[in-house]
């Protein structure tokens, strides 16, 4: 049915659409908060939410033991889940926008594979890329290789005539290269080292520490305003490169700026917890379905959904078998696959209709 709208009706529709989006952000934030506290409450010893909240407001209210469990063991893990989920989802959301490809994320572009190789280099050969890094050897190596990979993708974009499809192909090439190198490292490794590599690659939140948390939080607090300042050009980019350029957007510069931002986010996340696939894919995808692609809402909501997904994953990883914490990388991928398939199917439907 075709009905002409008055100008007032159009403005009103836009107003209620905006209101719905703010509501969505509030709802997801609420769910995230709930999941965060449930995550803290769950573990080898289960506590009620109210107990956790009491220990939270008054650390010694239930004795020293509970204070140590909540504040020193579970809180860093729960915060890391939220932070890394947000970092990966924001990185994925931005990659998908600048590459105009809904499948782009740190994992599919080979950043995770590069980080894994960096980590294995440290585990097997004890080779440090940054000298005198000490206990952070594995993390630092992973970070350096992830940044180098992003740098390589960045350089590739600056080559003349390289479009977004070519960049995805570069990503796939990187993925295979580092997977092969990783296999080589495993071939050379001792049994004990193989076990460590495999464990690293599965992704685990048990490597949480306050140093990592503060670094991650700092990065996110820079990256979110940085992205929000560029939301209008980024939204324009969704209209296609030519249209964005005609609106006055310097597309190649925007790509470079965003890639630098994404590199740091993705490299940090991956080097902290190892390979966690699909959060960078699932977070933005759900956010897109909820609020569309106005980046003012899309980017913050992607961060929130990513954080929620990883926080829930952390919760699930502790709940399947009592006393056992499964690596989160396994669980995200198992949740990720059905979502991945639904993305492929829904894009096919769009083309058919």
């Amino acid at each position, binding site marked *: 049915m075709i009905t002409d709208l008055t100008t007032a009706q*159009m403005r009103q529709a836009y*107003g209620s659409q905006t209101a719905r989006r703010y509501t969505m952000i509030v709802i997801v934030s609420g769910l995230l908060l709930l999941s965060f506290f449930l995550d803290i409450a769950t573990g080898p010893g289960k506590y009620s939410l109210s107990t956790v909240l009491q220990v939270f407001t008054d650390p010694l209210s239930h004795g020293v033991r509970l204070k140590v469990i909540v504040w020193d063991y579970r809180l860093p893990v729960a915060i890391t889940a939220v932070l890394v989920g947000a970092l990966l989802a924001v990185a994925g959301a931005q990659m998908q926008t600048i590459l105009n490809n809904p499948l782009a994320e740190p994992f599919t572009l080979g950043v995770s594979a590069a980080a894994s190789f960096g980590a294995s280099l440290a585990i097997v050969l004890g080779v440090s890329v940054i000298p005198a890094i000490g206990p952070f050897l594995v993390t630092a190596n992973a970070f350096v290789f992830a940044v180098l990979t992003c740098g390589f993708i960045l350089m590739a974009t600056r080559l003349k005539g390289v479009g977004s499809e070519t960049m995805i192909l570069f990503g796939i090439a990187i993925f295979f290269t580092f997977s092969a190198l990783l296999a080589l490292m495993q071939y050379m490794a001792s049994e004990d080292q193989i076990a460590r590599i495999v464990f690293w690659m599965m992704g685990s939140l048990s490597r949480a520490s306050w140093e990592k948390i503060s670094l991650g939080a700092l990065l996110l607090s820079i990256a979110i305003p940085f992205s929000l300042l560029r939301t209008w050009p980024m939204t324009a980019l969704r209209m*296609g490169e030519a249209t964005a350029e005609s609106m006055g957007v310097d597309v190649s510069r925007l790509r470079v700026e965003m890639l630098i931002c994404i590199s740091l986010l993705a490299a940090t996340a991956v080097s902290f917890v190892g390979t966690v696939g699909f959060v960078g894919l699932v977070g933005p995808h759900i956010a897109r379905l909820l609020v569309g692609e106005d980046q003012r809402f899309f980017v913050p909501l992607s961060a929130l959904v990513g954080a929620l997904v990883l926080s829930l994953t952390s919760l699930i990883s502790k709940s399947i078998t009592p006393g056992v914490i499964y690596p989160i990388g396994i669980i995200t991928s198992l949740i990720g696959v059905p979502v991945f398939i639904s993305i492929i199917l829904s894009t096919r439907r769009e083309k058919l209709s």
Partner: protein
Amino acid sequence: MTLSIQNLRSGYGKKEILHDVSIPTVKGGGFVGLIGPNASGKSTLFKTLAGLVSPTAGSIIIGTDDITHLHRKGRARRIAYMPQAFGCNALLTVFESVLLALKQTTGWRVKDENLERVSDTLSALNLSHLANRGISDLSGGQAQMVAVAQTIVRSPEVILLDEPTSALDLHHQLSILTSIRNEMDRKKPVIMAALHDLNLAAKFCDRLVLLRDGIILADGAPEHILGLSEIGETYRVKTELEYTKRGSIYVDARLSA
């Protein structure tokens, strides 16, 4: 407002596409049709004017301001360029897509006046019924009209349209060009459109510029330009100019044997 182009040279890398192009003063409220065969430099001229390609020589002047080297954002405030149509799969409504065209040059926060401007533009182009539709659900003609809305919502002084009627049916061709003429009568911008259909060009334009191989061959009133022998030579066809009963120009073209 006026636009004038003086001795413009431009191209990609070392390859020069436009050789010394001059288009003397185009007055605001004038509709200039840019005609010429494929690869004659029409898109390059538009991209150079819009600042997407840097000229190697010459100048572009709006009113009394030389904007040849004005940065991209500043230029986007004065010149709006509509590239040839592309599909897009973004999850945005028509209203949002027009709003974002406006927001590139008007600060971060969405103000009431921005929303007013968008809804007025959609109403003026008879697109209000599509305001809440997703842009990926539009037909080709509707998408093209939305692209026009994205172009005129900024109230630019110069509007450049690259083949606005390509791939559209007769109704949409006429309704797009009529909307553009209405906009012209309302706000008096300079309008230049690259057109392939010479009959449409004759019907809607006040002035035609004939481009071939990056050189301007002729520039003048439609009835004058379309009657020139250069038209036939440029398009490699035989043309004859006829007038219909209602006084419209009709270009009758045949392949030259």
